[in-house]
């Protein structure tokens, strides 16, 4: 895994570009601590920081041929097959590295090469023949690529902190996009929460010539093959095919020239992945887990059970309230956007633990909840759909009361009527294009009351809806309610939070590469086309996964109630009735006024609620508001206090100048 950086600025001098490139590349050191390199041409520069996974001795970047110069972050798992295909066509390779395969493939096929690549990547390639700068991101958007436009110059980077090193203090929050993010847990399409910074959208490539965008094209969309109803496979056929496709995906992701480990959460997804790894690798296999001092968050009992079952060498890291508060700022430094739960913080500690061993690559269970209908929103939608179709009150009642076993008030028969009333409010809206997001948007809408009143922002579902519609594929309307929700969960929660804030940035913050077997696009397309009932059978989530691996993993893991991975939120930032130092620094009225994102009176009033201590049970909403306030303030903190990491000249492995 690596960091990539680029500048395309025909009007800047060679000296200006060089100086800016060095500043930018230095800030991506954590993504690739093994080496760095750069390539310069007129009006253009590429930079790279390298974490060596394949061909550590060779394969340094930028990789330069007579036709192109490439910097690339990621892995293309089928590079052996692609190499053989190219060799048959007469291509001669200089290295064993996957980077060269991608470069040669692009040189032969142009942007069409993307359809052949199975993996996670962000690419910046300078095509010398056509004088085109080519940018691309993988299908699911696992690896980041941001674009800053400034005074006619274009800057590209894996992380925005590289822009800050060149233009300290300039990055600024866009209020309207911040509200989008607050409502959806992600911004839409190419948007970020910052002015002048866009992202290359997942599954998309962009071409620039003469310093300007000339082409932008989506080469992949989730569910693109699902047009004519559901697959006709029987459940048993589907289960066998699923098992073999997941196994194949795991095998592909074990390809590496360095040892591969895995994260164990204690849930079924990571258990299945680890079990499949163990079947393939008989040697010592290392697993890693987050444990909590507070028992209500701790899942170590299950993690250890799985580790014993697969005989892994297990490495847990224990998280306390102090770990959360002390590492808060550094976490936001890495993820660069507001978060809604503190759960990314332990993941940064976990990747640190990984690097204390010889492991650089871990397999994780991300994506199973989205593709196999694991989240409660899928059940909520099913309930709403049946309710609107006139299903009996008793059926609806029993479905609702079983929804959230981990939340006390849902199980209380006396209170349950209130919950029913809550869901009743969505009966009119759940069928619109927001589907399950209606519920998240409603829960998060309260954030608008906290925003700076001068911004005059109110959530506008019609406007957001039309912008959402513009991002939807044209076969969206053909899909079932639950397929639509799967698509939207992937686009919002998965891409905007799990793969980015909690995934890529937390792993790469300590130079660890995560790989996600459930997110192989061949597997996604297969599962997407299956009938809803195979995935959510009645109200049993991830039915297909549970049935497929019932024989291979401990029964306790299959039977345990599903619960989301969470960490203490607000409770970790109070000692008695006092805010801990970092929270006091970020949320004091002076700082709130200085940063200008929030209304001081609202923030003060919110905090007053906890002046006598944090109660044992705090609702979703208060935790979410607190974490959002803190993390947004921390984003502004890092804009105002950019780190300036120096460049280690000893680690430079490539420096190419091709001026004309």
């Amino acid at each position, binding site marked *: 895994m690596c960091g990539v950086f680029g500048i395309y600025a025909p009007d800047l001098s060679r000296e200006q570009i060089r100086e800016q490139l060095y500043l930018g590349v230095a800030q991506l050191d954590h993504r690739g601590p093994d080496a760095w390199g750069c390539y310069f041409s007129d009006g253009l520069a590429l930079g790279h920081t390298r974490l060596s996974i394949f061909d550590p001795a060779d394969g340094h970047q930028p990789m330069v041929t007579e036709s192109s110069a490439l910097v690339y972050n990621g892995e293309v798992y089928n590079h052996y097959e692609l190499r053989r295909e190219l060799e048959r066509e007469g291509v001669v390779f200089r290295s064993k590295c996957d980077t060269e395969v991608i470069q040669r493939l692009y040189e032969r096929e142009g942007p069409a090469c993307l359809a052949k690549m199975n993996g996670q990547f962000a690419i910046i390639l300078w095509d010398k023949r056509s004088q085109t700068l080519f940018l691309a991101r993988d299908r699911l958007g696992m690896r980041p690529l941001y674009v800053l436009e400034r005074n006619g110059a274009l800057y590209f980077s894996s992380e925005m902190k590289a822009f800050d090193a060149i233009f300290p203090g300039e990055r600024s929050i866009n209020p309207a996009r911040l509200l989008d993010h607050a409502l959806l847990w992600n911004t839409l399409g190419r948007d970020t929460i910052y002015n002048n910074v866009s992202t290359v959208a997942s599954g998309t490539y962009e071409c620039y010539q003469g310093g300007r965008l000339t082409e932008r094209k989506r080469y992949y969309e989730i569910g693109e093959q699902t047009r004519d109803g559901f697959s006709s496979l029987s459940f048993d056929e589907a289960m066998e095919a699923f098992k073999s496709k997941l196994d194949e995906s795991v095998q592909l992701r074990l390809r590496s020239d360095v040892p591969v480990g895995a994260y164990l959460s204690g849930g079924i997804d990571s258990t299945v992945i680890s079990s499949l790894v163990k079947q393939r690798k008989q040697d010592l296999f290392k697993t890693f887990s987050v444990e909590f001092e507070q028992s209500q968050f701790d899942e170590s009992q299950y993690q250890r059970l799985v580790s014993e079952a697969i005989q892994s060498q297990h490495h847990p890291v224990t998280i306390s309230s102090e770990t959360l508060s002390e590492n808060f700022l550094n976490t936001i430094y890495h993820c660069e956007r507001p978060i809604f739960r503190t759960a990314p913080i332990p993941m940064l500690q976990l990747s640190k633990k990984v690097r204390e061993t010889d492991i650089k690559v871990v397999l994780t269970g991300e994506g199973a909840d989205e593709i196999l209908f694991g989240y409660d929103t899928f059940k909520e939608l099913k309930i709403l759909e049946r309710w609107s179709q006139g299903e009996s009150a008793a059926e609806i009642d029993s479905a609702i009361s079983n929804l959230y076993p981990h*939340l006390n*008030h*849902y199980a209380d*028969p*006396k*209170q*349950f*009527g*209130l*919950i*029913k*009333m*809550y869901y*009743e*409010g969505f009966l009119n809206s759940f069928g619109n294009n927001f589907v399950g997001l209606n519920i998240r948007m*409603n*829960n998060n*809408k*309260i954030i608008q*009351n*906290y925003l700076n009143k001068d911004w005059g922002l109110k*959530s506008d579902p019609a406007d957001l809806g039309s912008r959402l519609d513009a991002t939807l594929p044209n076969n969206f309307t053909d899909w079932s309610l639950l397929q639509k929700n799967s698509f939207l969960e992937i686009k919002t929660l998965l891409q905007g939070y799990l793969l980015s804030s909690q995934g890529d940035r937390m792993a790469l913050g300590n130079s660890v590469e995560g790989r996600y077997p459930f997110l192989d696009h061949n597997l996604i397309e297969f599962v997407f086309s299956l009938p809803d009932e195979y995935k959510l059978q009645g109200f049993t989530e991830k039915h297909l996964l549970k049935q497929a691996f019932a024989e291979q993993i401990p029964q306790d893991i299959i039977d345990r109630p599903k619960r989301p991975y969470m960490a203490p939120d607000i409770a970790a930032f109070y000692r008695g009735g006092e805010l801990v130092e970092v929270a006091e620094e970020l949320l004091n009225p002076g700082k709130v006024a200085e940063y200008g994102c929030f209304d001081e009176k*609202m923030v003060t*009033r*919110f905090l007053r*609620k906890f002046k006598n201590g944090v109660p044992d049970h705090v*609702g*979703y*909403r208060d935790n979410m*508001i607190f974490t959002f306030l803190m993390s947004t303030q921390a984003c502004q903190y890092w804009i105002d206090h950019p780190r300036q990491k120096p460049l280690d000249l000893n680690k430079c492995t490539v420096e190419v100048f091709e001026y004309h």
Partner: protein
Amino acid sequence: MSFNAEQARSQLLEFIVNSYMVDLEEIPLDESLIDEGIIDSFGLVEIATFLEKAFKIKVNEEDMIRENFGSVNKLIAFAERKQNS
């Protein structure tokens, strides 16, 4: 002691202002607090508990319907009916 609806409404509004961080003028009297995004499902539970304590009433399972909980004014009318029953 007779039920003073005005006073009860003020008490409830004060509770909502302090618990859900909204300004008094932002609270609609005839709209659902859930639909307006002021409270979530947990908020409904908190309001039911508040009504029980503040107005010395017992909220039963069959009371939990939108007719009783669907707006501030409906909540007050519900509390009044309960106290008088």
